[in-house]
């Protein structure tokens, strides 16, 4: 199964239309393999994007260099998935 170790979900806050467009351009860079949980739509509306570990540095540098603010919504996706799986299997065991 697909592994998400090191993947992070970033919450990006685009301050203006230009920044929204820049984030949309990121969406087209298929090699980054970004997974938008909440699509870029308009300034002020949060954009949530899952970033594979291998793309994290590039994406963060891009955002910081363009002054686009972001926070880390999920530090490590895999740890949440493991927790979910543990809960399901403990129930099934019971």
């Amino acid at each position, binding site marked *: 199964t697909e592994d998400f170790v090191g993947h992070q979900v970033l919450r990006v806050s685009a301050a203006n239309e230009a920044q929204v467009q820049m984030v949309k351009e990121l969406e087209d860079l298929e090699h980054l393999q970004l997974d938008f949980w909440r699509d870029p739509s308009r300034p002020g509306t949060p954009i949530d994007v899952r970033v594979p570990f291998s793309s994290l540095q590039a994406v963060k540098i891009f955002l910081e260099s363009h002054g686009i603010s972001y926070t880390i919504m999920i530090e490590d996706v895999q740890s949440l998935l493991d*927790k979910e799986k543990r809960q399901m299997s403990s129930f099934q065991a019971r």
Partner: protein
Amino acid sequence: AQSTDTFNYATYHTLEEIYNFMDLLVAENPQLASKIQIGNSYEGRPIYILKFSTGGDNRPAIWIDTGIHSREWVTQASGVWFAKKITQDYGQDPTLTAILDSMDIFLEIVTNPDGFAFTHSSNRMWRKTRSKTAGSICVGVDPNRNWDAGFGKPGASSNPCSDTYRGKFANSEVEVRSIVDFVKTHGNIKAFISIHSYSQLLLYPYGYTSQPAPDEEELDQLSKSAVTALASLYGTKFKYGSIIKAIYQASGSTVDWTYSQGIKYSFTFELRDTGRYGFLLPASQIIPTAQETWLALLTIMEHTLNHPY
């Protein structure tokens, strides 16, 4: 589980467990609940809906679906909880009893079975169907961009590798086609509610155009009542509005099509949360999410009952 009373509603379940739950529920409530197969998914899995009816023939009906985007696990889990709630409350809750004494309720819990199975077996983050696109290595179509309403307009992607890929043509996905055929054959559905997560939103048409829907004022008022009822339980705040105003332009969406079919009370829910866990909502929040959403659903269903058209 041996019965729907021992079923654990506070954890996520596999497709097989949910299908077994449906059989248990129908067996325990033969006078009220029945299971209908409306088609087979792309990979050949049966697509089931539950019908809750107290009699009559082709009564006015309410449709609720969950799980059209497979990774939004809290929605299928809520759908399971809604099914049990309906059987528990009929005859007990006066509002639900009045609704079911005059109308039928159809509930499709796993609207995208192939995608849901794939989230359990291979990729928890999978959103789309699992259909193959000729000429592309990428798989799947966004089943909420594949409906014949503004299909092909801005608000969906023509790239098969995109998560919002609309598909080669409207209703190309059998998971969508099956519902379209059912709705058209039934012909008497008066409310259509499609449940997604996350963002805590209650949305009504349109998504593909900024033109206001003819019934916008009524839909807006009803949304306000519904989100107020929802918030009354745990204080969970929902925003509401038309799809294009509240979030973004989305073409080919479910409720734009159902509204175009004359189903006035067409809504999309985006359940918990607003963005801490997103699609990975902890199982501990399943029941509270389902409970608060149920209050909003009751508000919409009661309004539909009291405003026949």
